[in-house]
């Protein structure tokens, strides 16, 4: 995409506020009790597995779906019942929704025709938009004559050509192949920063969400689970669901034993109350826990370090047996089976050279106290 093309001075970006949004489909609550504010110019992402309510939320913001209860405000003005055609938004649909009987030019110019934009200006603005997404020269093609990536760009051009104050993207990259997805992701973020439009993005792909967003709202079963910057979410997941959904992690049950200095001591157990190992976590980060609390210990695969199974036992050192070794070039991912049968996923960038990395070999895992996250155990295990 050619973002050096003249920035078409659009109106100021929009602030979107959702208040107590509810929406049911039959007996299923698709969205419940959703309240949040999306700041002007943000790249805001709704992230969650399918059926979590993210697309429903987006469609309510677009006006394509009416909430059962709650309010949507644009810059403080309620727009809950405003029809989509008066909301001044741009939207990219998951299936692109290009009109098959119109050329690329007609598709992109559609919204400008509805806005009674004079012919000359319409042509100029469509040309600008197509240049911005790198599609100049394809004006007269029909959507069926374009590749998936090109169709995606047309959908994007069609959304931004009307200079919307809000851009809605519903899993726009999910229909592209892996390589193109990575490329479009980079172009999308550049384009959004360039245009400065408030953008709301819906995806189930955590990698996309982490890379693109200023802030992410994680939805699960219609509820907002956590809201924060990508770094917040990754480093301080609110619960097991978020930790698992963003990046994946190893979860181990344990009990808080007490405090030694800045360390919170947690005894791991095999679920039968018999302690198997001890981990130290940062006490200042986990002020909410006291001795005797049941916790779920969360350790990211990349926070575990593979070391030779030698030397004395100690805190933050888990012994086990190498079970699976996958060498992926840049990283090596492996699984280590602990004596009580639990399996931990381990990812190392530089595989140690001073030990045999064969399946079945005894190894030890080391984890820094800062990398040990304590979470409340899920309500019903």
């Amino acid at each position, binding site marked *: 995409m050619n973002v050096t093309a003249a920035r078409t001075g659009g109106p100021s970006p929009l602030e979107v506020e959702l208040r107590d949004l509810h929406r049911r*489909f039959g007996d299923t609550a698709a969205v419940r009790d959703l309240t949040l504010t999306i700041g002007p110019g943000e790249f805001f992402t709704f992230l969650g597995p399918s059926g979590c309510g993210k697309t429903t939320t987006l469609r309510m913001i*677009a006006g394509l779906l009416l909430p059962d209860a709650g309010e949507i405000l644009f810059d403080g003005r309620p727009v809950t019942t405003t*029809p989509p*055609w008066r909301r001044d938004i741009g939207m990219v649909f998951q299936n692109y929704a290009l009109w098959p009987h119109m050329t690329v030019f007609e598709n992109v110019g*559609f919204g400008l025709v509805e806005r009674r934009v004079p012919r000359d200006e319409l042509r100029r603005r469509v040309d600008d938009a197509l240049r911005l997404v790198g599609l100049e020269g394809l004006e007269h093609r029909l959507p069926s004559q374009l590749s998936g990536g090109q169709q995606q760009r047309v959908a994007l051009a069609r959304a931004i050509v009307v200079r919307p104050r809000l851009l809605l993207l519903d899993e726009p990259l999910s229909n592209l192949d892996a390589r193109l997805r990575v490329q479009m992701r980079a172009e999308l973020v550049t384009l959004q920063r360039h245009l400065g439009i408030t953008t709301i993005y819906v995806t189930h792909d955590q990698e996309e969400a982490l890379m693109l967003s200023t802030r992410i709202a994680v939805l699960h079963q219609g509820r907002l689970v956590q809201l924060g910057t990508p770094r917040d979410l990754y480093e301080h997941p609110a619960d097991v669901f978020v930790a698992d959904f963003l990046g994946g992690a190893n979860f181990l049950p344990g009990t808080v034993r007490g405090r030694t200095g800045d360390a919170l001591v947690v005894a791991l157990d095999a679920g039968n109350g018999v302690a198997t190992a001890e981990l130290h976590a940062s006490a200042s980060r986990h002020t909410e826990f006291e001795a005797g609390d049941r916790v779920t210990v969360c350790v990211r695969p990349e926070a575990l370090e593979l070391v030779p199974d030698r030397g004395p036992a100690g805190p933050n050192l888990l012994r086990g047996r190498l079970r699976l070794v996958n060498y992926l070039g840049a990283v090596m991912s492996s699984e280590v089976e602990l004596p009580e049968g639990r399996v931990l996923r381990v990812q190392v960038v530089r595989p140690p050279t001073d030990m045999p990395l064969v399946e079945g070999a005894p190894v030890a895992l080391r984890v820094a106290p800062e990398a040990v996250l304590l979470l409340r155990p899920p309500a019903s295990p």
Partner: protein
Amino acid sequence: MRIGIPGQAVAPAPPGVGWRAVIDPGHAVLGLLLLAILAVFVVWPIAAVLGAALVEPDGGVTLAHLARFFENPLYIESLANSLRAGAWVVAIGTVLALPLAFLVARYDFRGRTLVTTLSTLPLVLPPFVGAIALTQVFGRAGTLTLLVQDLFGIHVNLMDGLRGVIVAQALHFFPFIFLTVAAALMNVDRSLEEMGQTMGAHGWRLLRRVIFPLVLPAYAAGALLTFVKAVDDIGTPFILNVKNMLGPQAYLRITTVGRDDVDGYVICVVMVAISIACVGASNWIVARREYATLQTGARASGLPTRLVGWGAIGALSLCVLVLGASLLPHLAVIVMSFSRVWSLTYLPSAYTLGHYAEIFLRAPRFIVNTLTYSIAAALLGVVIAAATAYLLQRGRVPGKAVLDAVAMMPIALPGVVIGVGFLRVFYPMTLPGTETSLASTGAIFVLAYMVRRLPYALRASHAALHQVHGTLEDAAAVAGAPRTRAFRRVVLPLILGGVTAGGVLIFITSAVEFSTTITLVSRIEQSPLSYAIYIYSQSPLGRGAAAALGVVAIVIVAVGTYLANRLSGRSRMAFTL
């Protein structure tokens, strides 16, 4: 404000079901309007027929009239004849269709595409048009009869009485079986067959144990539809002068004994029962088949085996023989329309253009009437079908199932029953300020044709609209187009082809409609060409003109079929099944 819509209720945010799942006032008004139209022109006539046959004057339901039907020897004979004819048509049709279907589905040979194309022709050509010339081909002094007599010294008159009806209908309707079975055979996953082969089945055993069971539902559905078509067709018996069958009896009772004669309505009820039973059974079988052949994974459909040399010649000869026999009557109609003298010879001994002069110059009103009624029915039908399809797919109103059921009802109603129902309801009404009955205006034909063919148009509109994903409308709304604008700029251009194809279907089938027509014609001046063909064909001198009108019908149907196929962009006619 939330009102659950059946079928939409549990769906988790289906993309593009419209922007609000509440009742839309505009949709509600449109839905009520459509329901009102369908109530007057579909439900009322049928209710009137049922009421006349099953309800006592005091309002009580009675089966006494129906019981009398089974005591009348003429009716019993008519019922038996209709069922017997239907069964024979299916049997002969099966013998003609199955080998052909197997050849076309499994083997590739020169002329294969031509065979599939030609085999759809008898479906759209009106059966009674072929019947005009059948006697000339298979009758006492028919071309083929003479040929057989001269070659082998045997005289066989195939066209004698009921036998003639059976021959005419079998030749005409067998493509229903052919097309359904061929389609099913082509869909049989080759890997299923190969699986059978690895299990040790081959040849006849493979055919019997693997392929027949897979194709059987399609065959059953096609055979049932053929049966219904044969029982409903009253044009062929009329042209061939066979009156002791159900359809002709219903017509004769109503038109000769009177509109208040209960027996006519009772016969109609019997016909409706047969028709509904067969259509219902066919739908049930098709629905089950779809479930049974639900396949996952990669399909190996396999290429048809190429036939060369004697194999190809044999295959093609068989096809030519069967299709030739079914198209021969229509070819004979063309020859007949130019013939002045054609008696006891293979071909006419003298030719003339006089029959065309008759129908175009001396009595052009039949063609004019046909075009007027059919075009009007098509236009009306398209609007109603498109609006109904839109409501059914995108509408946010309750009661869609009712609308769907009522609009599709005519598909299971014999034409003569629709005609009788229209007479019963509209004959007593007069045009405001005149003595003219509503049933003797041209408009009655338009309405009856529209009702009769509405299911076809509805299906075409349904298919067209189905291809327009809901998000295309959503995208237009987001881009700033209010709903009516979005419909005009996005939905309408996309469905226009399919909807128009539906209209063309109404047009061509109405142009050659016979059963309803003959029931409704009250004055010869307002008769369309199908009835005129019947009238002409009843006198020896008029048969040439009947044939010429038949040729006009064939041309209308051929051009219409071509247009419909072009417009809907599909290789097979939308209404073959």
